[in-house]
């Protein structure tokens, strides 16, 4: 039993943290709110660092690493509110393509090219959630590569298509960097990468990975919002002292901090389970992680806004840049209540 990141993983995380602290400031984030895009110079930097291609196989120019390696980086992405689609591209699309490349070497050429393009920062992805064909996809508006679902004659199918084959109708989100869009496209035998049981399994595992990857971003967002609240509580004076010296303010922030403290190992453990365990165990761990992280981030958002008071309600205060992402991601890929329901079903089945 060893439940910790390796020194290498921590060094990688720290390096990414340093880069993002410079390249993804709140000024940068405001610029991204004004003109959101997928493949920015920052995306190129992350690709050069190996972050974007982290889960692309080594043979295709990536690092060939797993979700345990990616989670600390997603946490950093959340901390700075990274506007680019690291989650969709690296946590979700690349593993699907990697599995295709391994399973069906025949389809090689296109898949290999796409994987290489991802690793070099040349393609950013959008990925459909199960059972929500009509719902907007994050990263669709301006996305290059789409992993989509269809219902075929033999049941669920997974398709991979590029932007030329997809018509995207943008849909406004409270957070414009989500680049939501409705994707319209024609499934073809060429676009199809999986059918039947394989497709069902792939869709299920993608949803689990998405739950854990989203949870990891939420950890970073929660930490950032709690930090902003604590900073403000130290600075802001009322009644002749910092508001952070009032027990009501202390206990609001402490409560959120405790929730975050216990969400973290749940997310890390789920990442490990997805890399190493059977699907039933991994799914339950993924749902536990997402439920915990959604609740922790929602609580951090609520508390930080309350501590900020009216200033937190303004566009000029940085808080809203993180609030909006936290609200969106708390619900994306299943809300806390959705995942609690999955956890209970799984417990009952296995008991």
């Amino acid at each position, binding site marked *: 039993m060893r439940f910790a990141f390796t020194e290498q993983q921590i060094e990688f995380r720290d390096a990414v943290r340093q880069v993002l602290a410079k390249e993804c400031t709140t000024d940068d984030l405001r610029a991204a709110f004004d003109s959101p895009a997928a493949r920015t110079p920052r995306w190129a930097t992350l690709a050069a660092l190996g972050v974007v291609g982290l889960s692309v196989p080594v043979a295709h120019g990536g690092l060939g690493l797993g979700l345990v390696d990616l989670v600390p980086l997603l946490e950093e992405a959340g901390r700075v509110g990274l506007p680019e689609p690291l989650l969709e591209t690296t946590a979700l699309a690349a593993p699907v393509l990697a599995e295709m490349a391994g399973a069906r070497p025949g389809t090689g050429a296109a898949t290999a090219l796409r994987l290489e393009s991802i690793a070099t920062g040349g393609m950013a992805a959008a990925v459909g959630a199960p059972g929500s064909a009509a719902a907007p996809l994050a990263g669709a508006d301006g996305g290059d590569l789409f992993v989509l679902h269809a219902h075929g004659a033999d049941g669920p199918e997974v398709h991979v298509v590029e932007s030329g084959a997809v018509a995207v109708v943008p849909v406004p989100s409270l957070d414009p960097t989500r680049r939501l869009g409705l994707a319209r496209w024609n499934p073809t035998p060429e676009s199809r990468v999986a059918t039947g049981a394989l497709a069902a399994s792939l869709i299920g595992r993608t949803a689990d990975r998405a739950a854990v990857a989203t949870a990891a971003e939420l950890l970073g967002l929660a930490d950032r919002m709690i930090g902003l609240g604590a900073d403000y509580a130290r600075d802001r004076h009322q009644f002749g002292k910092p508001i952070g010296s009032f027990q009501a303010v202390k206990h609001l922030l402490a409560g959120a901090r405790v929730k975050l403290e216990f969400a973290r190992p749940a997310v890390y453990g789920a990442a490990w389970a997805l890399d190493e365990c059977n699907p039933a165990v991994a799914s339950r761990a993924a749902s536990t992680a997402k439920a915990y992280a959604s609740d922790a981030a929602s609580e951090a958002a609520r508390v930080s806004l309350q501590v900020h*008071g009216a200033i937190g309600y303004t566009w000029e205060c940085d808080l809203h840049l993180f609030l909006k992402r936290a*609200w969106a991601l708390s619900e994306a890929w299943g809300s806390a209540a959705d995942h609690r329901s999955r956890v209970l079903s799984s417990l009952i089945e296995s008991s």
Partner: protein
Amino acid sequence: MDAPMDLRFTPAQEAFRAEARSWLGGNVPEPGSLRSLDTAEGFEDHRAWERAMYADRWSVVSWPEEFGGRGVGIVEWLIFEEEYWRAEAPLRVSQNGVFLLAPTLFEFGTVGQKQRFLPAMASGAEIWCQGWSEPDAGSDLAGIRSRAVRSPDDDGWLLTGQKTWASRGAFAEWCFGLFRTDPEAERHQGLTYFLIEMGTPGVTVRPIPQIDGETGFAEIFFEDAFVPDEQVLGGVGRGWGVAMATAGSERGLSLRSPARYTEAAHRLVALYRRHLDDDPVRAARSADAVAQAWMDAEAYRLHTLWTATRVLDGGSVGPEASANKIHWSETDLTIHRTALALLGPEAELHGAGTVAPWLDGYLFALAGPIYAGTNEIQRNVVAERMLGLPRT
């Protein structure tokens, strides 16, 4: 005071309701047809609606007839509010004046002040904003630093300082606010309540964009802005007591009538019902919260009727106003949070048809535990004044 309990409305009250419903039915603009209150054009759209209501004496039903009202009681006002919200009528651009300043004017204003200000407020000709909070005086309102000194001609005051979080501040014609007229006095003393024309030389406004990108509130800067003596409300140095009367209105009965919440709860039940048809398993997860939200609004309605009866019997509203503010702000959050949970991932869709009112409402509700005195401050009041716990 010895009639038995009876929650039914009288035939006269029901007739009043019918008249209000009929008028609103024929006059309320199509929901969404007015432009945003946070734009100059939208502000005028909303002013026109106030004028239309005033023309038929529906803008301030509980005021005396001489000021444009119908002279009806608090129960009739609550009935009117029910009908107003049921009709999905527009937000009241004159809300700060009609619901916050007016009760204070009736209590503390001179005859001249009432005649000067009330009719123009009722008709929407003059829209008011509130100038209380300052950058360093929020929860600690008594920490106000904006000051007023006697004018050289001794016929008024020169106001200097900065106010903030003034809703409607960008377009309002008038502002009511607290300024320090005696710099030597203790914190709660030496404050005076002024009525200030926004066009006065020395008054400038900076709109503050909100979290949703709209310009809901503004900063107001004062540099030796002259205000004549007739625009002092309630006496020099008595501003704190006068302001507390207004604060009681904001937290208590007059700003937040139950209809706002009972209508929202009603729409929440309808939303739940639709989702129950679409995805019963997922919707059922919100069942408990939907019921709680509806009950919270219903409890607020009943509590308001209880308080209204006490007020009619000559009683007053004390620290219960703080309990009230905690309850309505939490109810508003519960209702909207539950709606967003039902909507699921759709909930982030800004400006989209069915989602928009819930998302906008949620953003507005989030401010509820903050404005009008944070809920933390209100809990202090409840603990100290309803439970007798010692001041810190």
